[in-house]
Every structure is written in C-alpha cells, then in structure tokens.
C-alpha cells in the first residue's frame, strides 16, 4: 500500500495547512532543507489573492459603471412672461361650455397657458359653479389624438389627403359662386344655433350667397314642449321652474334631474328644497314614468306607467280635478276629452297604485301655486299641452322664474323641411352642402337615407373637429377649433348672455367655424381675429348700446369676458301670459295603447353621440343599470319572461319605419311591455375609442322624431338567439333572492328614514348606539383634520363628482374588457342598491370613496409603509414606495382602493391614451401612476397643499374652508361638504354632529372620516319603504 504516493489532483484546492500538524513537523529532526519548506509562506495561497484582486477590480469598475444618470431634460422658461402668469400657479378663464345646448358658464383652469380642467362658473346665474359630467370630461376632446390637424380633400376612399386652407377657400368659394350663378341651392346643415352672433354670421353668409338656406336639426330637441307652450300661453319663451320653491313635483316621464333639459340647474334648485339642515319642510317628488330614470330613482312616490299612456293618465287627472274634486272650472274641451277617462278607470287599466294617485291629487290641490307638473321632452305635444294647462289651472305658474328660455336663434327645422332637403339633394337641386359641426349621416333617421342623398351633391363640406360619419362622405373635411380654442356667445336665458373665450391658441392648423363662413362670405380674408372682431362689433351694436350702461364698450366687453357673461334683463318680455281657456281645444283623443311601446331616451353621458370618442364618458356607469360602454334595450322582468329573455340576449325591435337588433338588459322598475333604448351609441366613424361601441338605433328613429315625440306604438319584439356581453360596474343581485336581499339595509350601509319618523324622533338613527372601544389610545391630531360629509337627501346620483375626479386626478380609462374583469379605476363611485320588488324597486345610491379612516385597516398590512396617516388626518398613498402587494385593497372594508393591473393607458385601444397630446390633459400636480401601483382617493391632497402654500404666503395657518375637493366643486346639488373637523364652527362639523349623520360600517371600528346624512323619504307613512 503506497501511502507515500503524492496525489496530484489536489493542487487546484491548496488551502492553508493545519497549523497543529506543522508544529508537530517542526518538532521532528529531519534532513536540513526539508523542514525549511514548512512555514506558512511556502504554502502561499496565491489563488486566494487572485480571487480578492478579481473581486476588488469587479466592484471598483462596477461602481465606475453607474455614472451618468438620466438627463432630466432642459429648462425652458418664458421669454416674455405674460402679466399674471406665474409658472406653477393656475389661472382661470370664464367661458361657456358647448358640450350640449345648455351653454353652462364655465371656469377653465389653465396651467402655464394650457387648459387642464373645466369647472362651472360660480358667477353664472344658471349653473352656479357646477357643470355636468359631460362638461367635466369634455376637456379630453381638446387633446384627442383623433382630431384632424389639416384640411382634407376627397370623400371616403377617394381622400387625397391634406390641402392648404388657401386652396380649400379658393376652390370652395368658386364653387359656391357657381352654385349661386346656376341657381343651385346651397344648404347649411347645423345643430340648433343659440348664438346670436353665429346667426348673424349665417345671415352674412346667406347674403353673400343668395341661394343659401340653413337647416337645423336636433334629435334630442324639446320642440313639443315649446309648441305646446305656444298653444297654451301664446308666447314663445319657455318658463324656468324655480324648483326650490316647489313643495310638490309631479314628473311625467321627465328626467329633469338627469337627461331632460338644464339638469345642472334643476338638481341644484331641487336639492335646495330637500335640505334637512335648512328646514324640515322637504319637497315631495312624484314620478310617473315607464323608464327608470335618475329622477325616478329619487322619487318619494314612483308610479310605473307606460309612456304611451301618459295622455290617458293626464286626462284622468284632469277628470279627477274637474269633476271629482271640482277644483278646476269645467270647460267643454275638458268634458269632451275626459268623459271616457275617469282617474279610477285609468289607474285600474294601467295598474297604477290608487292610493298613491289619491295622495298625488290631494297634494296637488293642497299645494296650489307650490306644486309643479313637468312632462318629458320625449312625449308628444298634447301631453305637454295638458301639463302646461294644468299648471296654470292650479296656479303653479307662480313657480316660474321671470328669467325664461328664448327659442334658438336658428330653431330646428320641421321634419318636412329636412325631408325636402334630402329630396332636393337626391334630385340634384342642391349644389353644395356645408355641415356646420353637424353629423347628420349618423344623427338623422335612417329612413331619410341622408347618406345616399349626400353622395348626389357635387360639393359637400364638413366643418368638424374630427372626421365623423358625415365627414367620411364629404368632398372636403375642414378642421375647426375645439370649444377651448373658440370665441362665441350663447343665449339660453332672456336675462343672461354667455360669452365664450379661447384659453389656448389653436393646437393644429384649424380654424374657427364662424370665421370660415365669414371669410367665404368675403367680408375679409380669414384671420384668427376675424370672428373675434365680428363678435365684438355685434356686442358693441346690439348688446352694449341697448343696455345703455355708463361704462364705455371696451370696459364693458372686458368685464363681460372676465365674468363670462353679460346680464341682459332688457330682453325679457313682461309677465307670463295666462293660459288660453280653449287651450285644450286641439288636444286629440289618445290612441289606444298597443302590445309594445318603444321609447328612445337620451344617453346620460354621451348625449347625441358627439362625445363617443371620449373614454372618460364611455366609462361612466349608467346611473341606474351601472352598465358601461354600451346601450341596450331595457325591459322589465315580466316582459323578459314573456320572451324567455335574460340580460345579454339579442332581440330585434321592429317598427313600421325600421328595425334594430340590440342586447337586452332586464331592469327593475321599467313598465311592462315597454322597451327603452338610448340614442348616441353605435357610431362607426367616431375614432379608435368610440367606434362600434353599442348599437346605432338610427333605424328606430322616425322622421317625425325631428320635431315630435320619440315614443312609438306598433312595435314588435322578437328574440334573435344571439347573445352579447353587457358589462356593468356592479354585480347584479336578484332583488327577490332571500340569500342576498336588502343587505345594504341589514348591514346599515344605506340608512334611510321618512320625514314623519324624523319629525317624531330626530335621533331615530341612533337608537342603539354602537359601543366601540380600542385597546390602544387614539392618535390625537392638532391643527386641521380633514373630513368630508355627503348629504344623501341632496345627492341624486348624477356622476358629476366621478367625472370631475377623473379629470382632476388623472384617472385612466381601462376599457370594456377590463371593467368586465372588475378593474375600473374611478376613485369615487356611486353605489346603487335596490330594495322592494323587481316591479317596484326602491333604489338607493351612495357616493363611495376612500373614507380616510382614523384606524385604517389598509395601513397596518402594507409591508413597505406605502400608505400611512398624515398629520392632518389623511390616509395617504406613497406611489413610488408601493410595490403592489394589493393587501391594502383586500383589507379595505369599503373596497375603494384601485390597482393598476396594467399600464392601462398603454393597454386600451393599442395605447390610444399614450399617444400625444393626451399627456397635456394630465394634471401636473398629480402623479401619473405606473403599472403595479395601488391608488385611491386622496381628498385632493394637491389642492390641500396648494391651499397651504397660499396660507403660508399670507402668513397664516391653513383653514378648513380654504380647500374645495374636485367632487365637491362639481356637485350640482352641493351635497358634498369638506373641511376641518377639528373646527367646531365648520360646516363639516355641523354635518358630523347632525342627527341624521352616520358612518358606513361603523362596527368595523375603522373610524371613517366621511359622514353620510341619512336620506329622508317624504311619504305619508312613518315606516320607510
């Protein structure tokens, strides 16, 4: 056995030898020169040195590697700083919103000369600082990447691309001149014009081109109401109701709190009549409707009645008041009309609760002069005649304001005019059509076949911001300014003339539409100031002069621009004329109801579809159904049962004049045998976001709808078999499923009472106070501590707060599939609950946002302290620390936290919202959150710090009243209060202390800081519905 054999393959592993053994070796005597090898030096462990050297080098160079950090970009200051513009400080411009025809006064917030938010103008007498969800979101249209940047030539496929404005002007004016010479018609198609100056521009144009005729149309018009008013009262100025003074309101298929008329004003005034903090006298709202509208959802009494039976019901009412209660003098017309319709009979025929009707009649009589009837603009003229007549018969005209609504400067043309235009276009009588920001190819009823007619017209021009359905067929598409780049004025009230001023120079090679017409009319070559001058000229001559004010025009003009309006009481026309006694003369006997009635309602957010490409609006949940990104045929469960339909099934709706196939949504509270669909969806050329969203119901729209009602008889419904995915932000729970029924009440999420109950016992909510205790002592906050209160008596669930929050806080749009997966990002949402039965549901809604709990469950569980409490009591979110464990969201009892599952801006429609210039819409004071980060309501912390800066400059501490959150600012009902809960005098403290105040899920002891004021239903019984 060769123990001596040295073993080679250990070399590579030489390590220090065992010292013990070395000592031992040294101890032995051996041949000299042998032992010398036994000191540590000889076993020099070079490999280790090398290793260390390698390590050192690597780390040194690694350090050397991380030099040159990312260039943060250069600084570009103002070369000529405009007066009053300080970088980082916002400016505000008063202007007017043109999102719909209501012309709300707006206050546009700009940063460094770029608009970033649109709010209501507090000085505007009509909308008083609030605007609707659409107005809020409309700022996105300014920065919509789909906007046209240059004039285009050639229709549809024949498009030859950009051309210069000069070419466009030259060729078009030449052609117009030829038309005049050849005596061919020039048609200008436009929405109703409420701008006196635009009217003047059109006159100038018509004067220049003698064969011009102007056509206006509006599928959502209120012409029936206006004509009826003329029939009853003789003049043409529609009244404005002062809802706050009404004790009893009867709404007949009228969504005056939602989509019918000037809802922003109506909500404010109506809510003012329902303020338990001001008075214990609350108004009482009766709603008689077939659809379940926002107004119906807020009713104290709601009666289901199909829209085509409204006239019957009104006749019954008239009969009751005239013959039973003898409250109205008998007229021959009344006798002729009502004999067949005693209220009893009508109520039985249409299954209307009799006792409620009796309450209604009694209330109307007891509150003469303090009650008001209002009918929806979808209904036919006769219904409105009845309503106007009854109002004046009951002396309710006292509730009308002296400020009234004049007709449009260019009123909607009658269906006959529009039809004849189409005829002339087909027959070649029309030489040119100019679409003035109008989209008739999509809007007009399919039966008119406007599109085909348009192809017969040699020269067709579309003046529009984007290429829409009409533009696609036009031989010229000329891009016009967005409303934020435009000048203008609008007259919606006899007392008020609103001004519109641009807040940013045109982003692209676009022009002001009025200026284009003026230039063509040959007044002067186009320049940005052309229409500006024209506007000032008209004001000098027609506004300033008649007013006869002391100040010179320049001062007057600048002041009006500053305020955003001029008040013109001179234009109003005396007292409201009494109703003609024979007003009912031409009311025809109601037609019998048929198997089905179809009602084409107004989309709550898209309006006529003009805003289809606005993702923020597409993603606002419908106030009742909570469905997003779609329209649908809403039917009652009974109707659905008859056809074995369930939500998502496709049906075909067939009318004499057309048809449409759409998905069904079963909706509680809709009258049986009624199908309601809203317009404005199904655009096919709206842009990457808006095209092919929902279904177009052009086919169902009849030409009569252009000036008449949008309720149809003779409808047949068939199930086609297909299915379609409707997406809603709230899981639907069967109303009658005992497993989940009325949880919102048993869990005290929604706490309601009746006015009676409240009068009897103001503290009825707090009969059984919760005993909450904590093992640790509470953290004390000295100084300001922020809190919010929401008055559920005022909130009508209009979604203005949601839309405002989206804009203020850079909330991304996620798209339909993502909402379907439950990933919507809105920081504040309106929860909707039903109790009662599917036939007669009792809806309740509740704005739900981060409650900023004192003992926030989300904070304990965050491993990286990305969410903690600030010294002023905010539950704050540290985005750049968040790693996205989502534990906080799981542990939030209110589920108000939102997670960026994707980079949603990149994810929607091939990164549509990552295209420029969308980045300009983002609030520079708010982080644009990345993928994988949790976010939630911050109580608008950026506004709080802004207020703190101002306070610091003024050398004082910040006050609770200094801050207004975006949702609070937007709320038309002024239902949201925000402020300092440590200040006992503050309004929010008053709300917190109020008898009706309660906290949602108080028993979790999270100590939320959002107080809800329980809603009081003003009904006759004491027990809640």
């Amino acid at each position, binding site marked *: 056995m060769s123990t001596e054999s040295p073993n080679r393959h250990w070399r590579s592993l030489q390590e220090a030898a065992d010292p013990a053994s070395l000592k031992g070796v040294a101890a032995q005597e051996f041949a000299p020169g042998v032992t010398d090898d036994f000191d540590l030096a000889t076993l020099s462990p070079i490999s280790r040195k090398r290793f260390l050297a390698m390590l050192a080098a690597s780390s040194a160079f690694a350090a050397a590697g991380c030099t040159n950090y990312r260039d943060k970009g250069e600084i570009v200051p103002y070369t000529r700083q405009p007066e009053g513009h300080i970088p980082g400080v916002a400016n505000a411009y008063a202007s007017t919103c043109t999102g719909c025809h209501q012309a709300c006064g707006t206050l546009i917030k700009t940063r460094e000369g*770029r608009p970033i938010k649109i709010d209501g103008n507090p000085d505007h007498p009509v909308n008083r600082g609030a605007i609707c969800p659409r107005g809020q979101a409309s700022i996105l249209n300014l920065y919509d990447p789909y906007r046209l940047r240059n004039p285009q030539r050639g229709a549809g496929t024949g498009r030859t691309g950009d051309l210069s404005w000069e070419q466009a002007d030259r060729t078009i004016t030449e052609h117009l001149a030829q038309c005049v010479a050849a005596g061919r018609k020039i048609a200008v198609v436009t929405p109703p014009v409420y701008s006196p100056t635009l009217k003047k521009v059109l006159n100038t144009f018509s004067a220049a081109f003698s064969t011009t005729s102007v056509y206006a149309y509006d599928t959502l018009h209120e012409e029936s109401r206006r004509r009826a008013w003329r029939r009853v009262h003789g003049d043409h100025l529609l009244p404005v109701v002062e809802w706050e003074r009404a004790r009893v309101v009867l709404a007949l298929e009228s969504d005056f709190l939602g989509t019918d008329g000037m809802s922003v004003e109506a909500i404010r005034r109506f809510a003012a009549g329902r303020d338990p903090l001001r008075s214990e006298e609350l108004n009482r709202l009766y709603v008689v409707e077939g659809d379940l509208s926002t107004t119906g959802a807020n009713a104290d009494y709601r009666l289901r009645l199909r829209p085509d039976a409204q006239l019957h019901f009104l006749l019954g009412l008239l009969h009751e008041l005239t013959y039973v209660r003898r409250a109205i003098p008998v007229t021959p017309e009344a006798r002729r009309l009502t004999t067949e319709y005693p209220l009893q009979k009508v109520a039985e025929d249409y299954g209307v609760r009799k006792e409620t009707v009796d309450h209604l009649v009694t209330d109307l009589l007891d509150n003469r002069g303090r009650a008001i009837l209002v009918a929806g603009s979808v209904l036919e003229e006769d219904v409105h005649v009845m309503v106007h007549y009854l109002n004046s018969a009951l002396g309710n005209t006292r509730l009308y304001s002296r400020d009234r609504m004049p007709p449009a400067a260019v009123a909607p043309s009658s269906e006959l005019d529009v039809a004849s235009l189409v005829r002339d276009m087909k027959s070649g009588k029309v030489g040119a059509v100019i679409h003035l920001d109008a989209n008739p190819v999509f809007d007009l009823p399919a039966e008119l076949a406007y599109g085909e007619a348009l192809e017969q017209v040699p020269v067709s021009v579309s003046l529009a911001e984007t290429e829409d359905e009409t533009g696609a067929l036009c031989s010229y598409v000329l891009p016009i300014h967005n409303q934020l780049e435009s000048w203008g004025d609008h007259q919606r009230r006899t007392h008020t003339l609103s001004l519109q*001023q641009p807040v940013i120079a045109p982003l692209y090679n676009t022009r002001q539409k009025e200026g284009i017409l003026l230039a063509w009319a040959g007044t002067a070559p186009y320049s940005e100031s052309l229409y500006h001058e024209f506007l000032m000229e008209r004001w000098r001559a027609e506004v300033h002069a008649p007013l006869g004010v002391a100040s010179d025009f320049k001062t007057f003009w600048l002041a009006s621009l500053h305020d955003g309006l001029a008040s013109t009481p001179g234009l109003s026309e005396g007292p409201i004329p009494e109703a003609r006694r024979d007003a009912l003369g031409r009311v025809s006997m109601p037609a019998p109801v048929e198997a089905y009635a179809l009602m084409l309602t107004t989309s709550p957010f898209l309006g006529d579809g003009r805003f289809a490409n606005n993702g923020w609006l597409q993603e606002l949940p419908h106030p009742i159904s909570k469905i997003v990104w779609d329209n649908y045929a809403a039917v009652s469960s009974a109707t659905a049962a008859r056809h074995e339909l369930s939500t998502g099934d496709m049906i075909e709706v067939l009318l004499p004049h057309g048809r449409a196939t759409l998905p069904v949504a079963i909706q509680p509270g809709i009258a049986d045998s009624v199908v309601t669909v809203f317009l404005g969806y199904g655009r096919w050329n709206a842009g990457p976001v808006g095209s092919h969203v929902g279904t177009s119901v052009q086919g169902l729209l009849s030409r009569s709808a252009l000036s008449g009602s949008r309720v149809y008889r003779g409808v047949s419904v068939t199930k086609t078999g297909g299915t379609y995915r409707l997406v809603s932000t709230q899981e639907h729970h069967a109303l009658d499923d005992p497993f989940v029924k009325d949880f919102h009440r048993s869990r005290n999420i929604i706490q309601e009472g009746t006015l009676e109950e409240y009068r009897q016992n103001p503290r009825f909510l707090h009969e059984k106070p919760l005993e909450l205790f904590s093992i640790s002592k509470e953290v004390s906050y000295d100084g300001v501590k922020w809190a919010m209160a929401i008055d559920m008596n005022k909130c009508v669930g209009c979604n203005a707060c949601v839309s405002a929050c989206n804009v203020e806080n850079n909330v991304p749009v996620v798209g339909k599939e993502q909402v379907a997966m439950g990933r919507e990002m809105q920081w504040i949402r309106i929860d909707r609950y039903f109790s009662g039965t599917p036939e007669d549901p009792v809806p309740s809604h509740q704005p739900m946002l981060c409650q900023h709990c004192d003992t926030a469950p989300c904070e304990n569980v965050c491993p990286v302290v990305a969410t903690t409490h600030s010294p002023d009591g905010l539950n704050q979110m540290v985005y750049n620390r968040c790693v996205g464990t989502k534990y906080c969201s799981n542990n939030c009892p209110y589920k108000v936290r939102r997670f960026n599952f994707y980079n949603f801006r990149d994810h929607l429609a091939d990164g549509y919202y990552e295209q420029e210039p969308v980045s300009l819409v983002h609030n*520079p004071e708010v982080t644009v959150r990345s993928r994988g980060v949790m976010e939630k309501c911050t109580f608008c912390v950026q506004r709080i710090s802004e207020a703190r800066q101002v306070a610091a400059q003024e050398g004082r501490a910040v006050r609770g009243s200094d801050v207004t959150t975006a949702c609070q600012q937007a709320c038309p009902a002024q239902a949201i209060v925000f402020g300092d809960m440590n200040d006992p005098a503050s309004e929010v403290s008053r709300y917190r202390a109020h008898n009706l105040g309660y906290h949602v899920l108080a028993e979790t002891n999270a100590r939320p800081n959002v107080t809800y004021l329980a809603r009081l239903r003003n009904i006759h019984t004491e027990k809640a519905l």
Partner: protein
Amino acid sequence: MKHPFPLYALTGLFGTPDGITRAAEGVAAAGYTRFDVNTPYPVHGMEHAMRLHSSRLGVFALVFGLVGAVGTIAFITWVTLVDYPMVIGGKPFWSWPAFVPVTFEVTVLLASVLSVVTMIVLYFRFPNTSHPLHDTPYMKKVSLDHFGIAILASDPLFDERATRSLLEQLGAKEIAAVRYDLDDRAIDRRLFEPRFLGILALTAILVSGATYVSFNHLLYWEPFNWMSEQPKLKPQKPSPLFPDGFGMRQPVQGTVARGSLPYAFAGRPEEAGKYLVNTLLPTSSVLAVGKKKYLTFCSPCHGNFGEGNSRLRGQFPNPPTLHSDKARTWPDGSIYHVISEGQNVMPAYASQIPVNDRWAIVHYVRVLQRAHYAKESDLK
C-alpha cells in the same frame, strides 16, 4: 529508515464497533492524547472511550440566540420610535405585540446558522480538503464500513515502533503510516502574470459595461417604470407638441383671465395719474412688502434709498433720483404707471410684480421721499 516526507500518523483498522471501542480505551489508557477515531457513523460510547469532553456548542447557540433577540427588538424600537415614527392604522408607534414574530425568526436564524458556522470553522477547522488522511486507503475503508484509529506523530508519547506495537496488541489490522504530501512547491507564485492580468482587464470591462447598461438603459425599458418620467407637462418644460417647442404657452390675444383685467391706462400716463388711486393703506405690513419688493426690483438701479445711485456701479445708465421735485409731486398713479409700463430705458415690471405689490412699492417710495425731506414734525 529515512523517508523524504514527514510522518503524520500511524493508523490501524478494526472490523467491529466493539473492537474500535476497546482500542480507543486502550490507546487513551496508554496516555496518548493526540489520537483520533474515524468511523462511518457515530459509534455510541466512543467519546467516553476516547475520554473527550462533551460539546460546548450549546453555549454558542444560546449566545447567538440572545444576540438575535435583543438586537432585533433594539433595532425595531429605534426604527419605530427614533428614526422614522409614523402613524400606521392609528396604532401607537411602539406596538410591541406586532414585533414578536420578526424577533422570534431572527433569533432562530442567528442561533442555528451561526452555531453551525462556529462548529465548522472553529471546531472542525473546515474547509480543509488537503488533510494527510484524505484519499488514503485508510480513509476509504473507514468511510465505508471499517473502524479506524489514528495516532498522530505529534503526540508527545509517539514513538513509531512503540506505537505500532501498541496498535498490534489492540488487534488492529492493516497498520499503516500516513505521511504529509509536500508537492506544493511547483505552484506559480507570480500575481502580475500577463494571462491573469488579461482576465482581470476583461472582467473589469465586462462588469463596468454591464452595470452601465443596466443602470442607465435597461432599467428604463419596458416593463420597468419608476414614475420618474410621467406623461404630463411640468412648468418650464419643453414640449415637442408645440411648433415653437415651449411647454408654457402665451395667453390668446384679447382674452381676460380671472382677476387680471388688462391695465386700463396703457399708454396714457396722464390719465393714469389723474384717475388711479392707491388701493392700499400704508400699514406697516404693506410697507414691509413694499420695502422687500423695492429692494428686490427697484434698488439695483434706483439705489437702496432711491437716490439714483445705482448698485450696478455705472455699468448701466443711472436713472434719475426719486427725490426730484418731479417725482415727489407726482401722483401715486403716475409712479404706478411707470412701474407697470416703464419709461425711457426702464422696462415694464407688470409681469414680475403683482398689482398689489406695485401699490406697496409706491407707498415705500413715498416713505423714502418723506425720510429724505423730513419735516420738523417727523423729527420729534
């Protein structure tokens, strides 16, 4: 017999656990201390046979454990009370029950891992892969199924002949001498040898390159997002979206922002003097503001006391003194007008100085003039 390599130990093998136990007892009885027993698995009773102390590893475990426990508590306390106290879920800063789990885990971690490290490094002197016993037939056998005993040459009683006979008595088979393996001298000792330096340089380049790329580029590609660059436009940032590249825009001609009506007397100094009146009262706070703004904006040319002695040391034409009769008899409005619109070489200060501050400056100028031409009454 001489041998080139020094002796490490004499080894003997045994076939049964009983045999090795007896052998160990024998060797120990003979007074040997530097000997070892190698068996494929722990043979029970051997530590007594070899007269070894029982292990003190437990003491180390205890110490490490305590260090872990106390250290963790101390650290957490420092973090939550001293370094960065935060209100989390309305709980007290030092909510000790929540600290128990972490403390426990760290205790266990330190105690167990460090004791093992101690054993390996301190007691075993591992790693050591070049022990003389390694790779000997002796080791091969004991690691399989034999039981061996090795008496080290370094033992004071060691004498090759006597020890060998002792092992024979004890019944050892295959008694063998194990020697050091001394063939280490051939190893290359130079550090600066070109091939190695080459490798060194290569590593350096690779590492620095890699770190550069990852820190400055890789970390900014999809999907990474640090929110350091966000799709929004901050003040004074350029923007390619506008033809002139300026992110900050000029207001549109003829528009009026809230609270900034254009100056009514533009280009009309006389009327300004006639109609404009100071909107502020000369309170001490207003004068303080006025002084601040004057010293900021006016004094560079007009001098700290308005004598027109520029602080610019004549690098710029000196402006007239503010104590001239003209200036003193001027109405406030005219001074305001000049500040707003400038005159001669003096530029307009409208965009730098807000309206109220201009009026405050006017007050302060009045104070300077008054101080310069003080009345008797002022001196009292």
